[in-house]
C-alpha cells in the first residue's frame, strides 16, 4: 500500500476545500436572506 497516505491526503484536502467553499456560500446566503427580510420589513413600515 505504497503512497496510500498521499492519495488519502489529496482526496481529503481536495474535498475539504470544496466543502468549506460550499459552507461559506451557504452561510453568506443565509445572512443575506435575513438582510432581505429586514429591509423588506423596514420598507413596508415606511
Amino acid at each position: 500500500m505504497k503512497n496510500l497516505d498521499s492519495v488519502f491526503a489529496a482526496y481529503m484536502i481536495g474535498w475539504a476545500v470544496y466543502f468549506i467553499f460550499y459552507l461559506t456560500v451557504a452561510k453568506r446566503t443565509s445572512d443575506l436572506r435575513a438582510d432581505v427580510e429586514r429591509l423588506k420589513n423596514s420598507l413596508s413600515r415606511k
Partner: protein
Amino acid sequence: MAKRVVFAAISFLLVAVAGYAAFYVAPTERTMGLIQRIFYFHVSSAWAGMDVLIACFVANLLYVWKRDSKYDALGVACAEVGLVFMTVVLITGPIWGHPVWGIWWTWDARLTSTFVLWLLYVSYLLLRTLVEEPERRALLSSLFGIFAFVDVPLVWFSIRWWRTQHPAPVFMGGPNSGLADPTMKKVFYFCVLVMHVFALFLVLERYALEKMKHEIDILKRELEVA
C-alpha cells in the same frame, strides 16, 4: 428551495459514487501503483474548472455587450467556483508529483500557466472589492475577466505545444496518450461527468447568492427614496 435540496443531494451522492469508483472499481495502474488514483480527482477537477472559466468568459462577454446584471452575477459566480476548482488542482497535483517526480513543484509550462491562471482569477475577485459603484464594478471586472481568459487556452495547449514535466494529455494527445484500460477510461469519464454536475451545483448556489446581493442593493435604494 426543494429543487435546490434535491440537486444538492444528487450532487453529493454522485461525488460519493465517483470516490468509490476511483478507489474500488478502477484497477491499480501497473507503473505508478496506488498514487495514480489521484488522477481521477485531479484531472476531472481541472476539466470542470476550465469549463466553468469558459462559462465565466461567456458571461463577461455578454455583460459587456448587453449590460445586464444577471451576466455580471453569473460571471462572478463562475470566477469564484472556477478559482476553487483550480485551487484543488494546484493542491492535488504536487501531492501526486512528489512521490512520482521526487519534487513538489517545477516551473514548467503547464504548472506555471495554471498558477498564473489562479493568480488572474484571484485578481478578478480582488478587483471587485475595490470598486464601489455596481455598474462600474461589473464592467471593469468583465473586461478583466475577458483578459484573464487568454490564459485558459494556454493552460490547455501547454502540454501539446511544449515538452513539459507534466504528463501527456489524456484527450487528443496523440496515439500513445490517454488511458489504455477500458475500466480506467469508464471510471475517468464518470468522474469528469460528476465533477461537472458538482461544479454546476456550486455555480447555481453562488449565482443565487449574487442575485440576492443585487436584490439588497435595490431594496436599499428604494429605502433611501421612501
